[in-house]
């Protein structure tokens, strides 16, 4: 029996001539019976790699052997032995759970006898037995994901490939899935699992870290993380506001790889373990995380101050900038948001955190006047969104979840258009556009249609367009999902520097680590704001944000179980 399930050497994939390769000279092997994580930001080449392994794409250069077969010439033989769950799970939403399973079982050539035994076993394993008659489209994200897994397992594969199985799925379901897959490997199945969540990495036996088509690291994630032992610190006893402290650290020219806000303190990754002694009084050693190591591999975080706020001044003096007053939204008998109340103070970053479908977006839409509350009010600087939406909205800069700029227009045309609709004119307009180009490093792409920009630059342009008119309030809907960690740091540097000048920010996210950037968080679950508080208030000693999130939701479920 061969030890490795896949051997890839010097693999390159170019989609169209003259373009940058989607995968560039990649060599690795996948060990049998292990879970390998394929990690990288959107556009890194993860999906391309998986498709190449399955023979759905053919390589431009290099060699691929999977299960000792050539995926291009022996495609059908290969598919006999592989299971694949594509993005969006590959389910027929208008078929029931059982009909989906029947279809994939038939297409994998299972006999009636085999079907009966595997169905029973797989349904029990995934707790889907009570839902066999439900349409796949009516399942929750977590259940869809499990059904997708079931369907990919029906052919009894030796090698299971999962493409971003955790997108759109809440952390609890994510953990369950990981446990299921872990159990599978015990029966000898090899798994390749792609993800853009860095915090999933530590659960894999080995990882492949992809960025921009290049394989940056292959190996054990724990070893990689442990290599930073002793060089990661949290600030303590500083009496300084964490954001101001972060800015000073970024400016300090010290040998620092990474510095990010974590709750009340700043997390600092040093290049040298010995440096700590100099700062003993206010640095406390902490355990390194996988993300620290990734940043090191990527060459360290951008160590410069954001210039975006240099000309910003917020004239708004109200102390409460944003207020949700018993906001409720019902669709028929379904309550999407139930009696949500919070206040956001000037210069605060406030996060709405919760799984998909919990009611974050509904609350968010009511706050920016895109959806009318069934009852309750949304107030922006004291102005009721329902009474004077135009005036209330003029205080807002809004960055939508999906890229919502004009894709065919060039970067410069988009900037000009947004400057125009915000009423900027003449030299004002020109100066502001020049400043945005400068701050966000857009000069290289001015003539490029914005739809074809790399994801990081799309986000930059979207932010530039949202803050063009110096809004005192910024609404950000999942601003950095899928973006690589360096760009994400740069993005938050910009946000932080604006908040320092008094800008107020409301942000939605399902990235747990992003919640750390917020001053306060509202945890939204089943339409309710189940907890509001600062990240350090929500977390218990030693917990990550995700642990805290899962604990709070379980507590909530138990309490309501008891009530029923």
């Amino acid at each position, binding site marked *: 029996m061969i030890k490795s399930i896949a051997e890839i050497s010097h693999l390159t994939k170019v989609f169209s001539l003259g373009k940058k390769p989607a995968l560039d000279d990649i060599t690795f092997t996948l060990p049998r019976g292990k879970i390998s994580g394929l990690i990288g930001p959107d556009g890194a080449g993860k999906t391309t790699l998986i498709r190449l392994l399955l023979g*759905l794409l053919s390589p431009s250069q290099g060699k691929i052997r999977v299960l000792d077969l050539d995926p291009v010439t022996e495609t059908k033989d290969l598919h006999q032995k592989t299971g694949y769950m594509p993005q969006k799970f*590959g389910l*027929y*939403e208008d078929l029931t759970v059982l*009909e989906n399973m029947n279809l994939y079982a038939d*297409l*994998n050539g299972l006999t009636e006898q085999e079907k009966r035994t595997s169905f029973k076993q797989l349904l029990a394993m995934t707790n889907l037995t009570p839902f066999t008659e439900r349409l796949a489209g009516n399942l929750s994200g977590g259940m869809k994901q499990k059904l997708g897994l079931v369907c990919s397992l029906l052919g009894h594969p030796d090698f299971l490939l999962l493409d971003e199985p955790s997108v759109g799925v809440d952390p609890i379901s994510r953990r369950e899935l990981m446990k299921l897959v872990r159990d599978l490997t015990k029966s000898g199945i090899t798994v390749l699992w792609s993800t853009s969540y860095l915090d999933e990495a530590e659960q894999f036996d080995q990882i492949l870290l992809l960025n921009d088509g290049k394989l940056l690291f292959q190996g054990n994630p724990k070893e990689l993380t442990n290599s930073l032992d002793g060089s990661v610190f949290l600030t303590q006893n500083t009496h300084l506001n964490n954001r101001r402290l972060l800015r000073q650290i970024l400016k300090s020219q010290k040998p620092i790889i990474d510095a990010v806000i974590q709750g009340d303190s700043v997390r600092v990754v040093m290049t040298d373990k010995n440096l700590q002694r100099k700062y003993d009084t206010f640095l406390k050693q902490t355990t390194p995380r996988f993300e620290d190591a990734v940043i090191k591999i990527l060459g360290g975080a951008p160590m410069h101050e954001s210039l975006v706020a240099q000309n910003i001044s917020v004239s708004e003096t109200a102390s409460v900038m944003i207020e949700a007053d018993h906001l409720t939204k019902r669709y028929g008998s379904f309550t999407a948001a139930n009696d949500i109340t919070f206040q956001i103070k000037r210069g605060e970053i406030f996060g709405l955190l919760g799984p998909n479908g919990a009611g974050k977006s509904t609350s968010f839409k009511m706050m920016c006047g895109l959806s009318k509350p069934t009852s309750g009010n949304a107030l922006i600087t004291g102005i009721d969104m329902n009474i004077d939406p135009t005036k209330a909205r003029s205080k807002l800069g809004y960055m939508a979840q999906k890229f919502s700029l004009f894709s065919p227009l060039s970067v410069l045309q988009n900037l000009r258009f947004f400057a125009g609709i915000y009423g900027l004119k003449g030299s004002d307009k020109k100066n502001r556009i020049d400043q945005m180009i400068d701050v966000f490093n857009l000069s290289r792409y001015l003539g490029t249609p914005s739809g074809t920009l790399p994801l990081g630059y799309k986000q930059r342009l979207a932010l530039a367009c949202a803050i063009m008119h110096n809004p005192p309030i910024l609404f950000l809907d999942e601003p950095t999902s899928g973006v690589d960690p360096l760009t994400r740091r740069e993005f938050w540097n910009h946000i932080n520097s604006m908040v320092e000048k008094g800008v107020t920010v409301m942000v939605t996210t399902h990235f747990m680590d992003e919640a750390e950037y917020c001053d306060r968080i509202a945890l939204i679950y089943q339409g309710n704001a189940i907890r509001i508080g600062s990240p350090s208030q929500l977390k218990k000693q030693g917990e990550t944000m995700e642990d805290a999130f899962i604990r709070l939701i379980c507590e909530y479920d138990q309490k309501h179980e008891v009530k029923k």
Partner: protein
Amino acid sequence: MKYVWPLVKKETLQIIRDPSSILIAFILPLILLLIFAYAVNLDNNKIRLGLLVEGYDHQANDIIDSFKGTEYLEVIRYINRSDLQTALIRGDIKAALIVPNDFAKNIGDPNNTAHLQVLSDASDPNIALFISSYAQGVLSNWQRIFMQEQSITGPTQIQIEPVIWFNPELKSRNFILPGSIAIIMTLVGMILTALVISREWERGTMESLLTTKISKMDFILSKYIAYYGLALCSTLFCTVLCVFVFHVPFRGSFIVYLIVSSLFIATALGQGFIVSTLAKNQFLAAITSAMLGFLPAVMLSGFLFEISSMPTAISWITYFIPARYFAPAINNLFLGGNIWSIILPQSFFLLIGALLLFFIMYKITKERLE
């Protein structure tokens, strides 16, 4: 090929669950049939016909009477040519019949030809066509009687002999409805299928299918079989409406009708699948199908607009429109019966088209993602 049936089952379930496919297969044809039955009416009850008689005798009178005696025409007398022309130009009358003053003289003279002039306003070609053929019909009828009365033998003096076959009442509905089935089925067949393959790509299920054991042939055949079933139901629904609701006679063989319709459905499905495969986006596919399917079928199938009166280049294009072959075949099956000389060649061309489209579909269906 053993994976065709599970896929057909899947398609069928999807069809049943998806209200839009029922809408397209049954409601859309119903609406279109109603439009064709009531709104597109080529019958010209009471067309205003101007009449100018320059020379008067009893033969001319006979002819005039036979025009007057029809319920389709309202005859208005004019005294001079200029009034008649003005009325025709202004649209007061749609056509004019002029009996010249030498008509009576020539009609009795075997060495001369008698002339009648029929003018019609061709800005409405249907009316123009109708008037001229109607005039010819009336005249030849009159002439036959006249010649019998006079016991004249020899060459007929009026050369054209239009004979109104199959639709003796000249009810345009009987002619339009069967033809419109060809157009409706082009549209239905293409729209039903246009979404089917683009949907698999958009929802990411295509990728899942590509990694199972199915072959390209399984995939294509399953789509054909499932949607053939639905489209055939839709055709039968249209046929039942035509025969039992609109009382269009059905004189041909039902089995032959099924075979010809099946061939035609195969061409429509093939076109839809090809559009769907190339578009990879449901919206684009739907628009393209409507443009590529419906409009040419209406304009170029020869069912509303006579192919022989099209410019040569355009008439060449009509050879690529499957409805061109289906419309006459179906018309004959409804109104004429099994006229093999028409049905066989048209079916042959439909078969060639269907096979060609299937072949193209097979060639452009990819087993990889690039």
